[in-house]
């Protein structure tokens, strides 16, 4: 990939500059902190889960464009989804950014997440793209402590 726009797509730049669901949630049922020591990306993730459904989700923190956009797009995609569906989406997303996606898989079914396909060419940036997702999984499991990508 020689065009940097394939990695830094407009959608990614937009979300990093104007992240969605970017606020603290006072009545969250699940909270988790994600940290990437390599680059200092640091996010707090807030979830409101009722009957296995993610009713609301938000985040706050600082990081690179890839990690911030990924967190922003994640929150808009998982809102209203069941925990099981969210986990399934993460599995597919993880395969996408690590370049392990099945040839027959329809990338468009991932919706906006497809814009991260360029990340697979940058192994060191995979952690940026997946930080929010790993934090989400730990939040859902109520795993204590900070989610670290290291």
């Amino acid at each position, binding site marked *: 990939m*020689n065009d*940097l726009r394939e990695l830094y797509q407009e959608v990614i730049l937009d979300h990093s500059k104007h992240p969605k669901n970017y606020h603290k949630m006072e009545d969250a049922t699940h909270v988790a902190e994600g940290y990437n020591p*390599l*680059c*200092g990306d640091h996010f707090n993730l807030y979830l409101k889960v009722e009957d296995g459904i993610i009713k609301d989700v938000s985040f706050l923190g*600082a990081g*690179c*464009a*890839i990690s911030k956009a990924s967190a922003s797009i994640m929150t808009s995609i998982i809102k209203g989804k069941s925990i099981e569906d969210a986990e399934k989406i993460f599995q597919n997303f993880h395969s996408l950014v690590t370049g392990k996606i099945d040839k027959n898989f329809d990338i468009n079914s991932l919706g906006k997440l497809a814009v991260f396909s360029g990340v697979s060419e940058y192994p060191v940036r995979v952690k*940026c793209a997946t930080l929010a997702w790993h934090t989400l999984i730990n939040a859902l499991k109520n795993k204590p402590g900070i989610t670290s990508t290291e």
Partner: protein
Amino acid sequence: MNNTDLKNIKHQKSLDVYKIREDFPILETLVRGKPLVYLDNSATTQKPRCVIERMTRYYELENANVHRGVHRLSEIASQEYENAREVVREFLNAESVEEIIFVRGTTEAINLVANTFGKSFIKEGDEIIISEMEHHSNIVPWQILCEEKKAKLKIIPFNDKGELILSEFEKLISDKTKFVSIVHISNSLGTINPVKKIIDIAHHYEIPVLIDGAQSIMHTEIDVQDLGCDFFVFSGHKLFGPTGIGILYGKKNILEKLPPYQGGGDMIKSVTFEKTIYNDLPWKFEAGTPNIVGAIGLSEAIKYVKSIGYESITVYENELLEYATNRLKQIPSLRIIGEASTKGPIISFIIENIHPHDIGTILDFEGIAIRTGHHCTQPVMKHFNIPATARASFTFYNTKEEIDKLVEGIQKVIKVFS
């Protein structure tokens, strides 16, 4: 000396960067279809052809284990390994080869001193002084030691320009202070610390001093006797030599008092189950088969650097630093982190609203290699309340044209995020 004399000296000493670049095969590489612009020299330096060829020749014609065999190849290998030690001794102007210990690198050298000096001389309540701008490798070994011995770590702070506050250093010294360990040139700020002054102050109170020369060795001539330091440590790979080899210089009278670091072959004179007699210096600290080819490669690198000469290296690198600083300062949203009055050719910077990792990735599209992150100096990042910086570090094979490319690249980064 009048101006004409100065000009003449400068003229005589000026180095031919384009000729030097031909010595480094990797500089002809294309990255993403573009000529490599390598500005990550603080992380590791590239290797000149003479080093690569010397190491190949060793493996092709001379390879054997050292200090053991009676056969011809072992004799050659032992000779070359010990010759390398002499090259290092002369390079640092150490008094004797007994003071030159081959280690894996700066980190191992500091660990060796923290372990052995710590074991013998640090006890509960003692204090060790380091600074706020140390690399993690000059923090963590001392922290481990302090935890073990219930000793205390004291920190010399730096000001917002990135200069150590020496008056605070003197205030930290007490009769409990047993060791001072300080970085010569900061890898994340570029600051050249007044190490000679620090050593003088510490020695006034008879406190031994270790100087971490990881970043200074490729930029400054080191004379350990002139500096007066008790220990000086550096890595070969930051001096155009191979990875996995480094040097611990220690004053003989102190090294003699230290217990061994690791036990094994080569560091002993005789072994019985009742008693082992340790080898003499420097081998006492070199257990196991050493990095023979690494030592030989390092010695070749030293010869190469000497052939260029530190005088012309310093003059040229200062020109690069000044040029790059001036050009980067013209970018309004860019802020340089580390503005000490004396700096090595290292520039850390941040750009408003753009994370250093995004800067690094976009520059990579242009074939420009810089470092991004906390540079293993998290306390420095904390001081400035930033998670990371982007860092361009130069050496004598870099050119002003490459700095122009860096500036163009940064302008592109800013455009992408505008």
